[in-house]
């Protein structure tokens, strides 16, 4: 029995008999399937601003979500404490989606032994180590301010989650997991002669505080945030119009998340409302592109041992050498599409219904040297860092916003430009990928994805790539002669 399994049994007195009783109640009006999602999450957040610890918070959310599936229909209810009467009430409520005779009168339970642990983090014992966390924040603050006297504001947030989950379905299999999550985030403002620049950086993952000891030091992230803000002080107007765009490695992988990742989530495809619907097997990218979603990378922010439906995560090939291969599945959609589950059924918390979501989405490394890729562009844009992105699943149009970008002139990176949104068409943008670098990097671990009002932690990654044309949303229109 894993630690989390014991957690609900020991701390909340949950018994196998209770679990069976809740499931029987959930399926009392019919339906093919029911499951319970027990969650206990402790969160801690700290804000350092103006070199002062201005806020420190801790909180506990504990509850149980009950789901009943009947055909294409889902009934859902939850209890925000773990008392048997409230969970039974939730089970009765969720049951109402179905209209038929009771399916089962008993459920035999068995525990699923975990096959792997991608985040073997030691649980904190006793009172949490607040002093150690504060030191991380103060070190980052000091390093950001020391980077350059023009850094005028530094704001640092530390966030931590310790989530225990227990899942049990009508098949009686009990799955448990303990999911730690840590995130350090730094934002800076530089000011000089009436100009302002901003920078953001940070890192984390399903790790312990030791993560910040080595190369991921608070100073490393702080200096990166400060560097970006200083660069922005010199930024010129960004160009506008179609041009060649080179994306740097790491964070710019948000391109994949928006352009193809969401469009390949099974729910949109089952319903035929994705720009990728019915295109499996078709060429949707240049032969240089292979894109995967991988929930099994140790310690990563987007990784999970099992998804929020108890299915082990895996590495799923989405695009292989330019051809569309697979979708991201959860239980409901895989069942209806007669496809195999891929371990992508995720939910924000016990208050939410699971749906297909990404984990860590990235493009495999290619053969090109990054400097050769830059040299091949006469006029264009080099984008090193991005803020957020968004996509219209149905039309396929997506955006992602560069927060650090430069002009490319005669194969060289020259002047920094102000932030600009890039817009493209998901099913065609990767067809214009004409070079893929050998320098694959994953993002530093601060990404969050929103869908239907639910936020989940995710990761992205990409090597340096060249897109021969993409629309850049700056303010200075450029003619084709200037930018080819």
């Amino acid at each position, binding site marked *: 029995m894993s630690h989390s399994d014991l957690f609900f049994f020991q701390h909340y007195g949950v018994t196998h008999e209770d679990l069976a009783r809740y499931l029987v109640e959930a399926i009392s009006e019919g339906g093919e399937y029911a499951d319970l999602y027990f969650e206990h999450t402790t*969160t801690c*957040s700290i804000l350092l*601003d*103006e070199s*002062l610890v*201005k*806020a*420190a*918070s*801790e*909180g*506990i*959310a*504990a*509850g149980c979500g009950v789901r009943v599936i009947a055909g294409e*229909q889902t*009934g*859902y*209810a*939850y*209890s*925000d*404490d773990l008392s048997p009467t409230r969970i039974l009430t939730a089970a009765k*409520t969720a049951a109402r989606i179905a209209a038929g005779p009771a399916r089962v009168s008993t459920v035999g339970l068995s525990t699923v032994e975990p096959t792997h642990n991608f985040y073997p983090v030691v649980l904190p014992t006793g009172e949490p180590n*607040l*002093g150690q966390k*504060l030191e991380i924040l103060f070190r980052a603050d000091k390093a950001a301010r020391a980077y350059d006297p023009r850094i*005028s504001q530094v*704001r640092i947030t530390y966030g931590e989650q310790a989530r225990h989950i227990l899942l049990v379905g009508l098949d009686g299999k009990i799955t448990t997991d303990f999911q730690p999550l840590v995130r350090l985030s730094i934002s800076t*403002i530089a000011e000089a002669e009436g100009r*302002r620049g*901003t920078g953001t950086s940070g890192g984390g993952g399903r790790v312990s505080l030791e993560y910040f000891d080595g190369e991921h030091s608070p100073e490393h992230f702080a200096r990166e945030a400060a560097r970006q803000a200083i660069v922005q002080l010199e930024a010129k107007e960004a160009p*506008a*119009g*179609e041009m060649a765009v080179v994306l740097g490695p790491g964070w710019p992988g948000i391109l994949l998340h928006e352009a193809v990742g969401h469009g390949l989530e099974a729910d949109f495809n089952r*319903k*035929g*409302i994705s*720009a990728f*619907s019915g295109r499996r097997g078709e060429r949707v990218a240049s032969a240089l592109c292979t894109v995967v979603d991988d929930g099994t990378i140790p310690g990563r922010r987007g990784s999970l041992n099992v998804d929020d439906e108890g299915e082990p995560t895996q590495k799923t090939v989405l695009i292989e050498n330019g051809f569309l291969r697979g979708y991201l599945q959860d239980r409901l959609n895989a069942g209806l599409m007669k496809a195999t589950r891929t371990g992508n059924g995720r939910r924000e918390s016990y*208050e939410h*219904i699971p749906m297909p979501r990404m984990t860590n989405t990235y493009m495999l490394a290619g053969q090109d040297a990054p400097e050769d890729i830059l040299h091949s562009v006469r006029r264009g844009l080099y984008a090193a860092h991005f803020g957020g992105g*968004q996509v*219209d699943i*149905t*039309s396929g*149009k997506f*955006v*992602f*916003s560069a927060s650090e970008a430069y002009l490319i002139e005669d194969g060289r990176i020259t002047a920094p430009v*102000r932030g*600009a949104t890039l*817009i493209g068409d998901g099913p065609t943008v990767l067809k214009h990928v004409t070079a893929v670098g050998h320098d694959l990097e994953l993002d530093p671990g601060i990404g969050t994805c929103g869908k239907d009002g639910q936020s989940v932690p995710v990761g992205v990654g990409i090597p340096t790539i060249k897109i021969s044309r993409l*629309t*850049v*949303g*700056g*303010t*200075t*229109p450029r003619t084709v002669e200037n930018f080819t």
Partner: protein
Amino acid sequence: MSENQLEQIAKELVEGAVHAGATAAEALGREGDEFSVGVRLGKIERLKEAASKSLSLRVFLGQRSASAFTSDFAPDSLAKLLRRALEMARATSEDPASGLPEPDLLGQYEGDLGLYSDDVRQMTTEQRIDMARRAEAAALEADPRIINSEGASFEAGVGRKVYVNSLEFSGAYASSYCAVSVTPVAQTNGGPGGNLERDYWYSVSRRAGALDSPESVGRRAAQRVLRRLGARKISTRKVPVVFDPETAASLLGHVFEAVRGDSIYRKASFLAGKLGQRVSSENVTVVDDGLRPGGLGSRPFDDEGIASGVTPVIVKGVLQNYLLNCYTARKLGLRTTGNAVRGLAGTPGVGPKNFYLKAGSNSPEEMIRSLKEGLYVTELIGFGVNVVTGDYSRGAAGIWIEQGELAYPVAEITVAGNVGELLQQIRGVGSDLEFRGPIAAPTLLVEGLTVGGA
């Protein structure tokens, strides 16, 4: 939970905190019932119902403070909550601007703001499902090119909020909301091979009886998706841009971000230091009104116990007030405007009440007719706005204007400029202001933006 139980628990928690050594304390409690149903192609897709509750405590040890929250109201959980909050407060920094409001500022609006309507609670599950079904049916029946649907939904919620502090403020209010929405999908030529488009429409209100009919919501969603079919990409140029009320409200949202006290004291706003200065064209007046009857942003008091009022923000182009809570007011040497909002964790932030741009005299049709060439923007996506610098660059879709007419749909384009500059270049303010959320604006005609395309 019975009527006064949440208040009682909050009061006891605050008293317990003071008893345990806190120099001041406040508690914010919430409880509510939520309901949502999703219908797709006439069938129920998901049905969700739940009751939830939460309690958040903030304690002060002189000028140090910390907070803790829980959804578990068992006595031992609440005792742990209090202990943790006090322990953490010892580890935070002394901040001279922190603290509860000055006692003479505390208060609440006594009149009826129409925040709660029992007709929301009284709707049966069948009636609620029917609202979503009717909205979707109306959209699907509107035109043969509408070939699919992402679904329709009906959501409803009723809840109560309680705020208690150690200065003997205690207040509570109930609120309700309900919303119906639908997202139809249309295809060029209504068949295979054509490009897919989707769009949506919705109606939201605190009263079930005040919702638009689901049929009108469905028909409007259908019009919106149909006008997107056959979109082209245009070449890059500087043209006047007409923002419809939805996209204008999103633009006004950036103005809200820029007048928030926390952006101002950190100089993290393009409007920092501009109080009393002309920041927009003269036809622009922006108000934050906490007392609009039935308003989605109305409330009798804010999350620090400050009575709601009406704050003029920009009057005829001149910046008159920032929006503040107690902390940011102290940082700036100003008086709070009662805009404190609190989530479960952390210190109070600054949120809008009903933050809106006053209606002007131009009809949207007039503004469009006045343009030889321009963009009527109906959708903005992405996050390309920097409130510190005002830099603005977003993905857009809309309708191209030629010779004063809406000529053809355009997509895969960007709209870029600087929010500080574009406020100065608002040439037209529409007469069509509607409150569809806490931030609202009429149609706006703005010059000097760059539309990026091919």
